[in-house]
């Protein structure tokens, strides 16, 4: 097992290096002179030249890349051109906001998706199965941002049941400790704020959860059907009583692998796709952070932001690979 972990870690390295290269080059490729943009229209030629030198932008690309890697290793993600703060310091609240949203969304997706899938498989071709699968199909066809807009319009602007933007009540903001508001409010003992945070989470997380729920439901269903067709299940089933729970357990165990794959993939997609939801719900997450940086040509932020998100994505998939190997010993020996 240890051997497998080491091997996988090694395979990770070229990918990580490649990632930094890609990010580096993409940023360099964005048109516009950063020094010019920072200093604005009125800047003189000298000040632009000076700033270019200060920022090290006049060095050949490999020197810049090398410096970049060096600072990455020391944990320095650069300094935001807009806020002039260290990105490493600044980024966590945004990241936490997105993480909280993503985790809640994935939880919803897993709980509803897996169970819907299992029930659909068990009662194959029943009205439940049919309805669930149709809903799932529609679910993967709805654009997230439109769903968010519709939710916002209907539940918030129209009916006024739920707040339309933000993570908390602006008049009674949460005191951030971990920046994960669900935890922070409990730590502070403020149950009322906790409820408020939940109210703010509902709409965006449901919007975000729709597609993964649909996909997980479909995969779980087909995976379960495969398992249920297996001889040993048929034999057990013919014996009768309490069968549902046995199938639930066994079916689940065997379906874990495809489900895990989807979870890994979807989490990554959510991290990136959160940007759309965040735009609609005014959620101060990392998607917004990066997007705003693009409009402002805040290169260091764009660079580090994308890198951070991609790295998290890779790490999640890496951990899922390890979980695979732990569950299914065959995978290790491939």
């Amino acid at each position: 097992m240890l051997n497998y972990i080491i091997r996988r870690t090694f395979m990770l390295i070229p990918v990580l290096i490649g990632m930094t290269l890609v990010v580096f080059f993409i940023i360099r490729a964005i048109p516009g002179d950063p020094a010019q943009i920072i200093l604005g229209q009125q800047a003189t030629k000298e000040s632009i030249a000076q700033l270019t030198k200060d920022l090290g932008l006049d060095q050949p690309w490999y020197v810049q890349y090398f410096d970049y890697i060096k600072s990455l290793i020391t944990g320095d993600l650069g300094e935001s051109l807009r806020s002039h703060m260290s990105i490493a310091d600044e980024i966590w609240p945004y990241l936490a906001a997105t993480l909280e949203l993503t985790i809640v969304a994935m939880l919803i997706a897993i709980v509803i998706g897996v169970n819907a899938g299992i029930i659909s498989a068990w009662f194959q071709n029943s009205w439940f199965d049919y309805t669930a699968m149709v809903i799932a199909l529609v679910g993967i066809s709805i654009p997230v941002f439109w769903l968010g807009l519709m939710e916002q319009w209907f539940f918030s602007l129209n009916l006024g049941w739920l707040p339309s933007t933000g993570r908390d009540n602006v008049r009674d903001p949460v005191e951030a400790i971990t920046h994960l508001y669900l935890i922070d409010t409990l730590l502070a003992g403020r149950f009322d704020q906790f409820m408020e945070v939940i109210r703010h989470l509902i709409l965006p997380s449901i919007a975000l959860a729709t597609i993964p729920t649909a996909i997980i439901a479909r995969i779980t269903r087909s995976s379960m059907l495969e398992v249920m067709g297996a001889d040993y299940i048929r034999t057990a089933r013919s014996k009768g009583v309490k069968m549902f729970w046995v199938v639930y357990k066994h079916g689940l165990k065997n379906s874990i692998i495809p489900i895990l794959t989807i979870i890994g993939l979807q989490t990554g997609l959510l991290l990136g796709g959160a940007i759309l939801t965040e735009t609609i719900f005014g959620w101060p997450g990392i998607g917004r952070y990066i997007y705003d940086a693009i409009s402002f040509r805040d290169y260091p932020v764009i660079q580090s932001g994308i890198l951070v998100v991609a790295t998290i994505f890779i790490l999640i998939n890496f951990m899922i690979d390890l979980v695979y190997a732990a569950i299914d010993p065959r995978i290790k020996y491939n």
Partner: protein
Amino acid sequence: MAELATKKPNLVIEQEEKVLSPWREGWQRFKKNKGALVGMVTILIFILIAVFAPLLAPYGVNDQSLANRNLPPSASHWFGTDDFGRDILSRIFFGARISLWVGFVSVLGSIIVGSLFGIIAGYYGRWIDGIISRIFDIMLAFPSILLAIAIVAVLGPSLQNALIAIAIINIPNFGRLIRSKVLSVKQEEYIMAAKAIGMKDSRILISHVLPNCITPIIIQGTMAIATAIIDAAALGFLGLGAQPPTPEWGKMLADSRQYIVQAPWTVIFPGVAIMLTVLGFNLLGDGLRDALDPKMRD
């Protein structure tokens, strides 16, 4: 000369049985799937709308009428008007052109480039495979929307560039798909038989390997068009795709967003259009998969 042992062999098959190529059989199965047919019809409807938009649309796509801003659906404007007094129905019709165009072209590009690399990686293996697979891994390491946004940021916001960005992010998906199919076909004994006959590698690729890849490409391609359409709308929504006054559905949503309370129809209808189109492709893709896969799975 000795009698050939079996002049009239024990015939398992009767005389003139209808020849069923694997393709024909797949089509039979497809026809039975109602969902798939619905999907296909939906797509055809949208294609027709897109092609004949100038004839079908009651108004011009850019006909503004500031006196008629944000009117609710009525007899003269079935879907109402937007903030510039433009007829939403007409704009949606023309928007179909854009979405379908982006969907088809970007996916086609991805398929061609992705398949090329996938075949090379799968067939020739070793270090070439190593490099290509690593590149795919790196590309897939980025959440696709982010990568698309970054690419558009580099190239500049326009519909064209959105198309290119979407094509690029889909390349590794097809590349991997083709590569794994090629790898599995490579093992088959009929490939060895083809070599034994004296076939050139290039011929083997074209004649034996590629046809096996067509099915997964068709299925995956259909689903990819669905996501491409959504991605294009997403980019449009973020202002990174189509630029005004192009009636791209995502852009329409972004533009109308601020009027969502007074004029919800301006936001509802473009969204429904996106949803129906994508639903059509998903239904079709599902149907294709059910029809073609079990039978063609070798």
